[in-house]
């Protein structure tokens, strides 16, 4: 053993001390801090998280979802993620949509509609309280609906037909309309119909107080939303005492989390390629329903060559929608021919109106004098849009149309250039907002579609005397659109739900408003 000199020892010890200090620092950092504990936003009122009453079950559920809410304020912030988490679970309206997107009673027990269709008379549930203990009465209905014009997001103009709201008694409310509107109940079942407590609207971005079966315990921005059972709930007590909604940007991450046992279910999964694997595994169940989404490749009728109907029709003939549906959803989506999801009352299967027919496409292009044409395609940088764009480019090259792809960051750049400035020839996006067909009546919308016939038919439908005449009028709108094709309506995206066998009650269909947790249980 050689003897080290003292000079060699001293610095070495100092190094060791330095390393030791560093490690101690890290340990301290880790132990002392609450890094990522997430106390960003809380909606608790502190009064309902006590011990659960006797007989209440202590089931919990963790659900994996896609896009996260930007905040909790759906009055000022767009995005389906906010109502998806909060509607029917935290906030309730007079009515709600069921799994078939049909209107059902909620805070209103029943209602009558006057013969001129201008007055809606609602009988309310009694004994309803907000989760902070404040009572819910007809005055809250008036307050909430009077406040809708102040909303910026979620299209407040959908309730523009409302003239006034009268609180007749605590449990009766009348809504008076300027003109008949057959869509009123449908929109009241959505986010616009949410009932608020006047004392709790000052900070909706971080505090959500409603009459629903759950309260927001905590929102860890972009990561998870934790809901706890509202012990003051007026209706049937939910089975789950706690629900955690976890948000994943990537399609495979929630599927992996389900497989490794971190979560119990994946809702609206984008991992269509995993369906077969899950189906063959008896620990899980797979449900495939519909969504309200319309994936549409819009052809700007305000710009050549798409100002010519024949060119638009040629594109629809020249693009193989079935191949797109197979590529993006493994064929689980429904191939469309009109902007109508299968759950709408005026849906009819128009998938075969324009079969894939390149010869016909060439013919129409030649007739329009556009045998060789080049178009620009603004493509959002979302995986499904990129897939669609590649297929469209390849399909259309076979009929003489050269497509130049321009990828745009979604949402920011796409919303700016394509949506707001309407600077596009071709673009594609999945419109998840319910009943977006009504935007074909708005010539200022980015679809740039100005057809007085459609506008007239849409307003006639809104005032039609009853459900049947309403649906009949809407069918006429659909027929005009399907002939005129301002867009190529590609497919209705499937709602893919993967879950552990123990989970029951999640609706396979996505009604476009809410992931309704009221009937869900998970006795694991």
């Amino acid at each position: 053993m050689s003897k080290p000199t003292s000079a060699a020892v001293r610095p070495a010890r100092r190094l060791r001390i330095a390393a030791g200090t560093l490690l101690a620092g890290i340990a301290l950092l880790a132990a002392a801090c609450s890094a990522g504990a997430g106390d960003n936003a809380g909606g608790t009122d502190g009064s309902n998280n006590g011990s659960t009453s006797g007989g209440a079950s202590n089931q919990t559920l963790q659900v994996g979802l896609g896009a996260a809410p930007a905040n909790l304020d759906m009055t000022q912030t767009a995005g389906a993620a906010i109502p998806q988490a909060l509607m029917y679970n935290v906030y309730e309206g007079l009515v709600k949509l069921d799994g078939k997107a049909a209107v059902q009673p909620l805070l209103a027990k029943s209602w009558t509609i006057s013969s001129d269709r201008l007055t809606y008379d609602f009988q309310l549930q009694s004994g309803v309280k907000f989760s902070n203990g404040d009572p819910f009465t007809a005055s809250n209905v008036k307050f909430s609906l009077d406040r809708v014009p102040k909303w910026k997001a979620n299209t407040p103009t959908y309730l523009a037909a409302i003239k006034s709201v009268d609180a007749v008694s605590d449990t009766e409310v009348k809504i008076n309309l300027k003109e008949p509107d057959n869509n009123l109940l449908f929109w009241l079942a959505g986010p616009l119909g949410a009932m608020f407590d006047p004392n709790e609207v000052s900070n909706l971005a971080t505090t959500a107080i409603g009459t629903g079966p759950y309260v927001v315990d905590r929102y860890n921005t972009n990561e998870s939303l934790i809901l706890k059972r509202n012990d003051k709930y007026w209706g049937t007590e939910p089975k789950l005492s706690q629900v955690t909604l976890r948000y994943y940007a990537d399609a495979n991450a929630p599927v992996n989390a389900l497989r490794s046992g971190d979560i119990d279910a994946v809702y609206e999964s984008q991992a269509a390629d995993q369906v077969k694997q899950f189906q063959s595994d008896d620990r899980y169940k797979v449900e495939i329903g519909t969504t309200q989404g319309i994936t549409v490749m819009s052809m700007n009728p305000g710009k050549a060559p798409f100002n010519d109907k024949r060119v638009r029709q040629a594109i629809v003939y020249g693009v193989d929608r079935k191949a797109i549906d197979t590529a993006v959803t493994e064929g689980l989506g429904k191939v469309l021919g009109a902007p109508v999801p299968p759950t709408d009352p005026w849906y009819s299967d128009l998938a075969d109106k324009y079969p894939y027919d390149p010869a016909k496409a060439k013919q129409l292009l030649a007739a329009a004098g556009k045998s060789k044409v080049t178009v620009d395609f603004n493509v959002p940088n979302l995986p499904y849009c990129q897939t669609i764009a590649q297929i469209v480019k390849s399909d259309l090259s076979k009929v003489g149309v050269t497509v130049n792809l321009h990828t745009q960051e979604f949402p920011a750049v796409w919303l700016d250039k394509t949506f707001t400035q309407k600077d596009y020839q071709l673009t594609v996006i999945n419109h998840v907002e319910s009943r977006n067909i009504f935007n074909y009546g708005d010539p200022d919308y980015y679809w740039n579609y100005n057809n007085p016939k459609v506008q007239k038919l849409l307003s006639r439908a809104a005032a039609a005397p009853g459900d049947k005449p309403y649906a009949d009028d809407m069918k006429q709108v659909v027929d005009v659109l399907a002939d005129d094709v301002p867009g190529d309506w590609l497919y209705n995206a499937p709602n893919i739900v993967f879950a552990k066998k123990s989970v029951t009650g999640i609706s396979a269909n996505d009604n476009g408003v809410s992931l309704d947790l009221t009937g869900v249980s998970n006795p694991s």
Partner: protein
Amino acid sequence: MAIRLIRRAALFVLTLLVASIVVFGLLAILPGDVARTMLGVDATPQAVAALRNEMGLDRPLVVRYLEWVGGMLHGDLGTSYVTHQPVAAAVSDHLQVSLILVISAMIIAICVALPVGVFAAYGQGRISGAVLSALSQLAVAVPGFLAGLLLVIVFAVTLHWLPASGWVAPIEGFGDFLRHLLLPALSLGLIQGAILSRYVRSAVLDIMREDFMRTARSKGLTPFRALIRHGLRNALIPVLTITGIELAALFVGAIVIESVFVVPGIGSLLVQSVQNRDLIQIQGIVMVIVAIVLVINLLVDLLYAVIDPRLRTSR
């Protein structure tokens, strides 16, 4: 030494100031608008204009810049346009997560790199050295997210030993915290370790050719003992420089790893803020990252003096 410190500090402040102008200017010309992004496809132009006004985005750039810088001097990074939460709180919360992740990854990297690098150098010309070299070369070529996905498939999906994603704060349960930390830290650290090991190897090889090493051998030390006693310390100087640079790179690499493992770190926050065009939050995050990188560089500079006594007097 004192003058050097003061000079470094002045440079530090100046760099931050320039960075603030560059960050603010670049973000001002970034296409996309936070108000439109927040309101999406179902809002009128009037609603968007009203929201821009509420956020104060319709005021002149200079006013907004001075307001922002003025706030920063008080430690106030502003309030997020999107989440309505203070930016400083969000940044500090997410930064702690990233620091834990990055430092753990660095520890793993060093623990891997030192032995692998030293043995690869020591075994040069032998099979053991070649194998170690080849393995580290292979690991360098693997992208971090791929390593992450492979680790998830093996340890989470197949073996069920560790969670596939997510994060648990230390105070919420230390065991759970470690279980969630392990996979992301490994996917960052192993690859960084492989990169670092190649620097260690070449630094050690250089040192072994030095005269003082021959002297150490000639006074009777075995090659390995000579290396550990006299060589390693000198080899550490270039390695430390690289470690400093790599530490900054780890923060960037962590952005990808954080999104693979759904870890709420500063990278996830940055990506989300950019997507939302939450300008004030992006500015805050970038400034904090700039400050961190500057501090790391400063520390590396100072650490040289600790490792190499010659540098203490020569400057």
